[in-house]
C-alpha cells in the first residue's frame, strides 16, 4: 500500500530572487519502509517535507498521505503525520511527561488513554526518570528522543524526520538510529532527510538523491552504488593545469580507471579497483605539482559525486 504519494511537486519562492526550491519531484513510499532524501543543504529536502507535513503550500503538484490530499484536507492529513522537526520545538512550559500527554490530547485521546500512552512512551524511550524535567533542562540528544516519542505518540502512519542527527553527538545519533529502527520493526513508515551518507546508507531501505530540487537517482543504497558504479574517487589538488590533458589520457588508458577529469582545484580520477593505482596517480601528477590528495572509498558519497560532480558536504 502506498503511504506517501508525491506527484510532480514544485515550490517556487517568488520574492526579489526567484528560488526554485522543489522542481518536479515524484516519490512513492510503501508501507513500512524507511525512505531517505539525501542531498546537500538547500537541495529542497526540507521544503519537500514541509509541503508533505502541511506547513508549506506547493506551487503545483500534489502530496497524498494515506490517500489524503495534504493541501485539500490538511487537518485530516495531520492525523497520519508525525513530525520531528530540525529544531527543538518541545513545549517549554510543559514537562516531558506533559509534552507527551497533551500531544495525545491534541489528537483526541481521552485523559486515560493519553496518560497510558505517555507512560508507555516514557518507558519505550527510556525517559521515565526524566519525566518531570522541563525541555530547557534536557541535552540535545534527550530532547531529540522526546521529540521522536512525541511525534509517534498519536500512532501516525508516517513519521517525518528532518535532519534528525543534525547537532547530535555520535552517541545520541546511534541512539536515535536505534529508536528509528525500533519503529521500523513496529511497521511505521519513515521519511527522513539527511546529508550524512552514513545515515542514509545504514538506516534507509530506499533513497532518493536530491539536488537543486530534483530527484537524481532513486533506489536502495546497494542498488545506487551498483548502478552508479561503486567507485573510489581520487581528488587531487594541483599547482598547475599545464599538460593535464596528457596526464588524464595516460590515466584513462588504465583498465580500472573509469573516468578522469580536470577540476578547478586540480583533477578527479574515478576507479573501480585501486590496486597499484595510487602510486601511478601520484607519479603522473607529480609533474603538475601535487599538493593534496583525497581518497573517497566507494560509498553513497562517491555516487553523489558521480551524479553531481561535487561533494555532499561542501
Amino acid at each position: 500500500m502506498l503511504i506517501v504519494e508525491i506527484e510532480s511537486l514544485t515550490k517556487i519562492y517568488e520574492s526579489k530572487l526567484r528560488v526554485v526550491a522543489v522542481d518536479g519531484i515524484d516519490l512513492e513510499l510503501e508501507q513500512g519502509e524507511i525512505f531517505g532524501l539525501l542531498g546537500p543543504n538547500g537541495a529542497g529536502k526540507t521544503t519537500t517535507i514541509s509541503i508533505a507535513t502541511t506547513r508549506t503550500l506547493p506551487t503545483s503538484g500534489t502530496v497524498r498521505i494515506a490517500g489524503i490530499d495534504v493541501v485539500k484536507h490538511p487537518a485530516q492529513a495531520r492525523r497520519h503525520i508525525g513530525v520531528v522537526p530540525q529544531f527543538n520545538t518541545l513545549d517549554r512550559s510543559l514537562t516531558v511527561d506533559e509534552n507527551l500527554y497533551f500531544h495525545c490530547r491534541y489528537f483526541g485521546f481521552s485523559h486515560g488513554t493519553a496518560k497510558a500512552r505517555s507512560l508507555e512512551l516514557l518507558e519505550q524511550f527510556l525517559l521515565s526518570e526524566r519525566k518531570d524535567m522541563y525541555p530547557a533542562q534536557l541535552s540535545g540528544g534527550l530532547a531529540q528522543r522526546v521529540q521522536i516519542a512525541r511525534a509517534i505518540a498519536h500512532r501516525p502512519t508516517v513519521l517525518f524526520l528532518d535532519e534528525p542527527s543534525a547537532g547530535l553527538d555520535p552517541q545520541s545519533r546511534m541512539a536515535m538510529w536505534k529508536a528509528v529502527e525500533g519503529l521500523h520493526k513496529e511497521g511505521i513508515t519513515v521519511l527522513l532527510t539527511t546529508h550524512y551518507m552514513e545515515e542514509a546508507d545504514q538506516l534507509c531501505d530506499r533513497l532518493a538523491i536530491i539536488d537543486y530540487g530534483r530527484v537524481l537517482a532513486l533506489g536502495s543504497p546497494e542498488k545506487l552504488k551498483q548502478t552508479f558504479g561503486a567507485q573510489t574517487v581520487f581528488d587531487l589538488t594541483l599547482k598547475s593545469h599545464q599538460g593535464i590533458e596528457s596526464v588524464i589520457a595516460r590515466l584513462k588508458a588504465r583498465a580500472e580507471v573509469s573516468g578522469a577529469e580536470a577540476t578547478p582545484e586540480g583533477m578527479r580520477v574515478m576507479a573501480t579497483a585501486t590496486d597499484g593505482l595510487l602510486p601511478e596517480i601520484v607519479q603522473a601528477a607529480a609533474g603538475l605539482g601535487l599538493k593534496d590528495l583525497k581518497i573517497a572509498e566507494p560509498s553513497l558519497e562517491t555516487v553523489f559525486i558521480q551524479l553531481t560532480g561535487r561533494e555532499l558536504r561542501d
Partner: protein
Amino acid sequence: MSMADGPGMFVKSFAGLLLRDLRVLTREFLPFLLRVGMQPLLFLFVFTFILPRMGGANPMAAGGGMNFGTILLPGLMAVAIMFSGIAAVALPLSAEFGITREIDDRVMCPLPLWAVALEKVCFSALQSVIAALLVIPMAYFIPAVPVRPHVGSWFLFALVLALGSLLAGSLGLVIGSKVNPKQIGLVFSIIVVPVTFLGCVYYPWAYLGKMRWLQIAVLINPIVYMSEGLRAAVTPEIAHMPWWAILVALLFFVTALGRLGLKGFLGRVLS
C-alpha cells in the same frame, strides 16, 4: 478513517489545546494574578485611597474626588482586559514564532489552523474575564469610599465582558503575529499605553464633549467601547454611550481585528 468522526475530533482536539493552556495557567496562577492585579490595585490605592485623604492640600486630589472610584471601576476593568489579552496572546505568541517555534506541535494537531488561532483568542478571553472580575472586589475594599457596582443589565454586562475580552485576544493575535519579539517592548510604549490613556478609562467619554476633536478622535480606539460598555453595565448612573452603539462598535472591532490576526497567524505558520 472516516470523514464522519471529524466534528468529534474537532471538539476533542480543541479541548486538548484549552487544557494545555489551563495547565500552564494554573501552574503560574500567582504570577498571573500579580500581573493582572498590580495595575488596578495601585491605581485604586493612589487615586481613591491616598489622594482623597490628602484633602485640599494636594491639587491632584481635586481631580480625584470622592466618586472618582465609581468612574474608575469600569475603566480599570477595561484596562485589565486589554493588558491581560496582550500578555496572554501577544507576548507568548511572539516568542513562540520568533525564537522557540514551540507553536509547531499545536499547529500540527488535527485542527484547521484557524481553530488553533481561535483557541488562543478564546483562552486569552478567559484570562481577561478573570482579570476584569478581579477589579470589582478591589474597588470595593481599597477606596476610601467603597465602590459598589450596580449592574443594571446582567445580560449587557456579560455581553460587553465577553466581546471586550475577545477583542483584547484578537488584538493580541494581531500584535503577536506581526511584531517580532525584539520589538514587543516598543509595542507597549507606542500602542498599549496610548490606547489605555486615551481609552476613556479615567474619564467617561461624555466628559470629552468640551474637546470635540478629541471626543471624535478617540472613537477609533477600541478600548473606548470596552470602558463605555462596562460603564453602561456596571455603573449606569455615570454618563455613557448608548448601549447599541457600544455593541456595534465592539462587534466591528472583534471582527476586524480577528480577521487581521488570523491572517497574520496563517502567514506565520504557513509558507
